[in-house]
């Protein structure tokens, strides 16, 4: 079995980079490592040799133990349907516009597909370490809720909403669709839209048993994973980081990215005269205040949740190769 680390947090905090750094670190310590990423910046993708979108893990150029894969949500969904549905149902579903819409924009769908991919790689046993970068929806939290949400969706929660009853068969459903209330809906909607959607959900429901069983596997893997929440000391990502506590399995580590050294917080004047002194004091005033804010926020976090908190120094330019990723990764290991 592989050791799994899930790196999550709000968008824009550097979690993709930190996920890559974690995998590079493991690989260079001699473990075989896979990083599963979602939407890396160009320079990071280049560093990982990911210039082409590929669902399958590819070895990272120049590294003997490191693989990288980029999640392709649409492809994962198609694979999932082909695996769990009868062939004719699968064809019908894949051609259905509602199915496309769900796969494209239902956030749980994207997160669930990422979880499925993760589980597939874990179960293959090919890697010692798997690092997963979560999709950028709802601050990362819905990655953990996706298996349950998927079971509900496929299990006909919405279908029951339409009919207001337990799952009916196709015939019964058409009887329900002829009810006056639904005819009012049709007159407003301007067509037999609900019937079409009901047909779609009946097809979708045939996937239920397969997906429900898979979802439980995904949940088990998530429960066993090391969870790393990445944030900065800015209010928006901080708010997301707080949401992880109390709503899911408690995170194992909170990483404050773009942190400044603690001794910047009260450095005082530089003692230099002239222009250099002025520039130094101005820069110190500005960044000293930020350093002060950062260390206060980190202390609040570890006091409140008793979680391990790590500060990763601010790198003005993001890592562009595996060496600088390894260096960044060192800041994460105790």
């Amino acid at each position, binding site marked *: 079995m592989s050791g799994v680390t899930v790196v999550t947090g*709000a*968008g*824009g*905090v550097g979690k993709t980079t930190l996920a890559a750094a974690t995998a590079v670190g493991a690989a260079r310590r001699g473990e075989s490592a896979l990083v599963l990423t979602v939407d890396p*910046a160009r*320079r990071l993708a280049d560093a990982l040799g990911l210039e082409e979108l590929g669902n399958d893990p590819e070895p990272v150029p120049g590294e003997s133990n490191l693989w990288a894969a980029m999640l392709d949500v649409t492809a994962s969904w198609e694979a999932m349907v082909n695996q769990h549905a009868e062939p004719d149902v699968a064809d019908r579903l894949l051609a259905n*516009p509602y199915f496309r*819409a*769900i796969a494209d*924009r*239902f956030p749980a769908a994207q997160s669930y597909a990422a979880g499925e991919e993760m589980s597939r790689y874990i179960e293959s046993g090919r890697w010692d370490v798997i690092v997963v970068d979560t999709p950028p929806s709802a601050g990362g939290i819905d990655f953990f809720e996706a298996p349950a949400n998927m079971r509900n*969706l496929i299990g006909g929660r*919405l*279908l029951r*909403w*339409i009919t*207001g009853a337990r799952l009916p068969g196709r015939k019964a459903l058409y009887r329900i669709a002829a009810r*006056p*209330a639904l005819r*009012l*809906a049709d007159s*407003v*909607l*301007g*067509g037999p*839209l*609900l019937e079409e*959607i009901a047909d*779609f959900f009946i097809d979708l429901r045939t996937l239920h048993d397969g997906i429900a069983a898979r979802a439980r596997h995904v949940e088990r893997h998530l429960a066993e994973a090391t969870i790393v929440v990445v944030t900065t000391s*800015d*209010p*928006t*990502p901080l*708010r997301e980081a707080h949401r992880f506590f109390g709503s899911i399995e408690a995170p194992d580590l909170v990483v404050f990215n773009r942190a*400044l*050294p603690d*001794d*910047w917080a009260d*450095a005082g004047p*530089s003692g*230099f005269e002239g*222009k*250099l002194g002025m*520039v*130094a*004091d*101005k*820069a*110190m005033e*500005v*960044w*000293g*205040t*930020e350093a*002060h*804010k950062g260390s206060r926020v980190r202390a609040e976090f570890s006091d409140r949740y008793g979680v391990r908190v790590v500060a990763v120094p*601010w790198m*003005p*330019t*993001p890592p562009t190769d595996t060496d600088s990723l390894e260096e960044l990764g060192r800041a994460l290991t105790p």
Partner: protein
Amino acid sequence: MLDNRLVVVSGKGGVGKSAVTAGLALKAAAHGARVLVIGMTEPLGLAEHVGVERLTYEAREVHPGISALAIDRPAALDEYIRLQLRVPRAAPTAQLTRALTVLAETAPGIREIITMGKPVFEVWASRWDHVIVDAPPLGQLASYLRAPQAVASIVPAGRIRDQAMAMADVLNSDCELILVATASELPVNETLEAVALMKAESLVPVTGVIANRVVEPLDIAARTVARLPDGPHRGAVELHMAVAEDQTTWLAELSPTFTIPYLFGLLTPYEVAARIGDLLEAA
């Protein structure tokens, strides 16, 4: 900027959209305009930037001339059914609500026109000079702006279609988009893609590209800095210069129409919004 009644503010997540939305509202209100700000997806950020703890679906005055509300999906759906689809109160709407809830989660465009319906409805209500929307982040923005067409393509006739077409009219004739970015790779690239997409699909004109949190270069040579001993001062100056240099590259790519400096220090979100409002006003 601020030439249309509907003003949509978007950007990649975490770049300071809500702060800029609040700043734009403060600037407009300073000129005596009646302004409504609407939080679409994550209303907490907008709430703190207009200086209140939380926002409700009922518009509430948060500052002289500025009212604010947050979209609440069930409330928006109810209002959509009654006011926009004009289903009488006495009609049995429980089934319709259920049907639309299902549609909102499956059919393309429905969820978006229900939520975008609120700002457009407020434009129609004519109580405001500007309705400024703290819109969903760039990843979801296009699906909101394309929603009327998406709905038209799946709903052949009826009131939902009519309403979607009326919404498209507002988006086409009385709406502008302001994009916010920070000066780094992903926000800049995603913003440029959004600008190109708006043009290619003639969705909504982009009237402003705002660079946020821009660090001003320090006017000093690197060899002068080298005279500082190792320690906090040297570190701070070098970090400042490196950040400024990296940002310069991305600013050149972005070519923003307006730049907001990094507002350092221990300002509250409301103070940040007020400073942004002053900066926009001074321009």
